[in-house]
């Protein structure tokens, strides 16, 4: 029995290793098993993790090659494996996101004005850059009414979500 469990675990780890390698590769431009440190966030996201910026910074501190600006697969692999095994940055349930928007939508209008959203996104938490903000607004503001219907937004984005 114990053997079965162990071999299943090993199989699991193998699968995880393959996933991590596959996510790492596209950013390894010089085929040296290294990636630019600035891509780590994207790689983590692509592995269906939802870290905060602080989480990402912490992770990078662990794996970066002494402030060279690069991360080698040798260090990335064990650290990332641990993250995945522990499910450290799980996806955010739809209901929670909805709640978060409702918190910002004080009057429960069902939508947010661009200015409201901007204020929160750029002043609170881990603020968006101007570029990120512009992107979000351009992509998701209802053109006719100039508001953001957040339930629609959530639906659109979670339709894409990892299964």
């Amino acid at each position, binding site marked *: 029995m114990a053997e079965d469990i162990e071999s299943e675990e090993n199989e699991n780890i193998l699968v995880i290793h*393959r996933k991590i390698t596959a996510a790492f590769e596209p950013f390894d431009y010089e*085929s040296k098993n290294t990636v630019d440190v600035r891509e780590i966030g994207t790689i983590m996201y692509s592995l269906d993790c939802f870290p905060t*910026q602080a989480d990402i910074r912490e992770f990078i501190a662990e794996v970066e090659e002494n402030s060279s600006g690069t991360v080698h697969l040798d260090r990335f692999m064990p650290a990332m494996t641990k993250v995945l095994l522990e499910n450290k940055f799980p996806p955010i349930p739809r209901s929670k996101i909805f709640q978060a928007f409702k*918190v*910002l939508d004080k009057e429960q209008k069902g939508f947010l004005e661009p200015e409201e959203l901007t204020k*929160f996104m750029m002043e609170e938490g881990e603020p968006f850059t101007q570029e990120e903000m512009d992107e979000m607004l351009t992509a998701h503001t209802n053109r006719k009414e100039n508001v953001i219907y957040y339930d629609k937004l959530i639906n659109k984005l979670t339709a894409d979500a990892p299964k």
Partner: protein
Amino acid sequence: MGCGMGKSRIQPNKCDRVSISVPAATAIRAALLIQRWYRQYVARLEMRRRCTWNIFQSIEYAGEQDQIKLYHFFGFLMDHFTPASSERNLISHIFRENEVCRDADWERYFCYKDIEVPHSYCGPHLTFPMTFCGVSKLMEAFKLKQQLHARYVLQILGETWRLLRILPNINHVSVCHTKEITICGDLHGQLEDLLLIFYKNGLPSCEKPYVFNGDFVDRGKNSLEILLILFGFLLVYPNEVHLNRGNHEDHIVNLRYGFTKEVLGKYRVHGKKILKLLQKIFSWLPLATVINHKVLVVHGGISDSTDLDTVARMDRHRYVSVLRPPKVIRPTLNGNRAGSGKDEDASGPAEGRRRRVRSLTNTSAPGQRNNIPRRSLHNLPTGGAQLNCSVEDELKERRRLAGFDQTYREVKTLDSDSDPEFGEPTETHGHEWKQIVDLLWSDPMPQNGCFSNEVRGGGCYWGPDVTEEVLGKHNLQLLIRSHECKQDGYEFCHNRRVLTIFSASNYYEVGSNRGAYIRMGPDLVPHFIQYQASRTCRELTLRQSVGWTERSALRALRQQLFVHKSDLVGAFQEFDPNNTGVISLRHWATATERVLKLGLPWRVLRPQLINRAQHGMVDYQQWIRELSITEPKPEVSDTSIMETMYKNHSNLETIFRIIDTDHSGLISFEEFRQTWKLLSSHLKMEISDKVITDLAQSMDFNKDGSIDINEFMEAFRLADLSTHS
């Protein structure tokens, strides 16, 4: 934030609303959550975008590789098959690029004077010498979708040819405070982009010099209009407008990528003449531009053997098509002379230019790097010195498949067609040829070093060390090149010593990328202006258009998968010895890459390509069935030939156009048969006469027994009706 700013009419007292406070901690937590969640979404979009990009690029480069393979195949035929008159002549003409000897004779051939412009013509009338008004008139006419009369086309082209002949190989340009220079990259027949650039930046003039860095033609549908406008400005401002040759300024490439078709479609009577004159013009286009002795502008790039002094000295117009090196005489295995200097563009083993035959399988392990320049090209042996006895049999086989004569005969050494001006090709010409190919076809890579660009089939991949070396050797500080499509229209590499500029927006698909151009003053610091020519596009963010572009890329990819059906099933079955009908996803990825050789991250693409995968296994037969490509109507008894046709769509079309020497767009049944013979020889396949006849019969022939090339190609174009996108 404050009163009076809102555009909303829903809440009148906006000020009050804003001042209602939310417990700070809650708001922060909420914001954090949303930011985290949204950033994940954006990152995944970015991954998809890169993937989509890779798909388009891989397919594009595979197509280029294909073209070069085909051309090499023809060269191989030319070198090793003695003329059986009509068959060889089917293709030999593409190697005879100087049919009439002297320029004076050419001038007579290209003369426009006898061409009458009828009263019914409502397009623009031009007077010569060309003036600014003339070019403006031309631009206005093209905006209104009018077509310039063939007489005027030939006139402009004639004048351009005369001008280009006195230009040096390398343009030298000076920039000063009152005169900033504008540099544009690939345009590829996209007239809207050129007009957008002129709109944003102003027209060329004495105060506004321009450099156009090649690839004006092919793919887009207004290649000729772009050329006429650029040539028009060149004629009016010869000191301010500079054109560099690109790899698509090459008649062999044009056969495949649409320019030839465009010209023949627009000018049914004079198209052939126009194409011939363009051939000459392309060969006379300068190869590079140097700004203030410091900035080199060239279409493709460089290699470790690039030497601008050699480039400056050569007779650039010898190299009408750059796809094959100039031929050098050498004896064949039989001691027969297999052709001579008459075929300017044939290949040879001279100066050690051997091409090794590479294995067809991708040697890198599954799941390995996708970013190394891919080397899985099968190069055909081209040198006589490499032939060994077993190739004799291969030769015989090829000839048989191509329907050529079985007997060898002595070749007449010189045509009366050859151009005495050029004489016998020598080793120098081989060296010069390599300089040009490298300038027009190369791509930069991140690693140090320099090696053949097998993916495209021409030029080199060069590294940052080569950049330093070549720039250093010539005392230059920046290399500006084009040739590769870039998401944002431009991209630096090699420590900002190499700059790629690409001016055809939406190149792969609507929304795929922006175009850009460079403005540069005497400080030689490049400034970029980006744009996207499309009404709908401008409203979308680049990320929104990811979905659209991605769907398009996946369509293209599914087509590639579909046309390789049989090979795929074969490869899958290798992993399924017990014939269970299912294989693991890992094996699926390995097999697919083995067959398609596109170097794509199949594991990442898998969710987009395979709907149903139970427990990590896929039913491959069903999957292939579900690729949702509908086959076109005409049904042929032999289904394998359909697959060959889809796979070789472009090759077929290229061969058709080569065979159609009078450029009528029609070929006879016999020529149709010959095309298939040639193709089967290239692919080393057997295609029986019966199959070909069946195929022909399934077509709706014109009454006189000829086949319209365009109609035929359209009838066999695949349509993807997949709904789940």
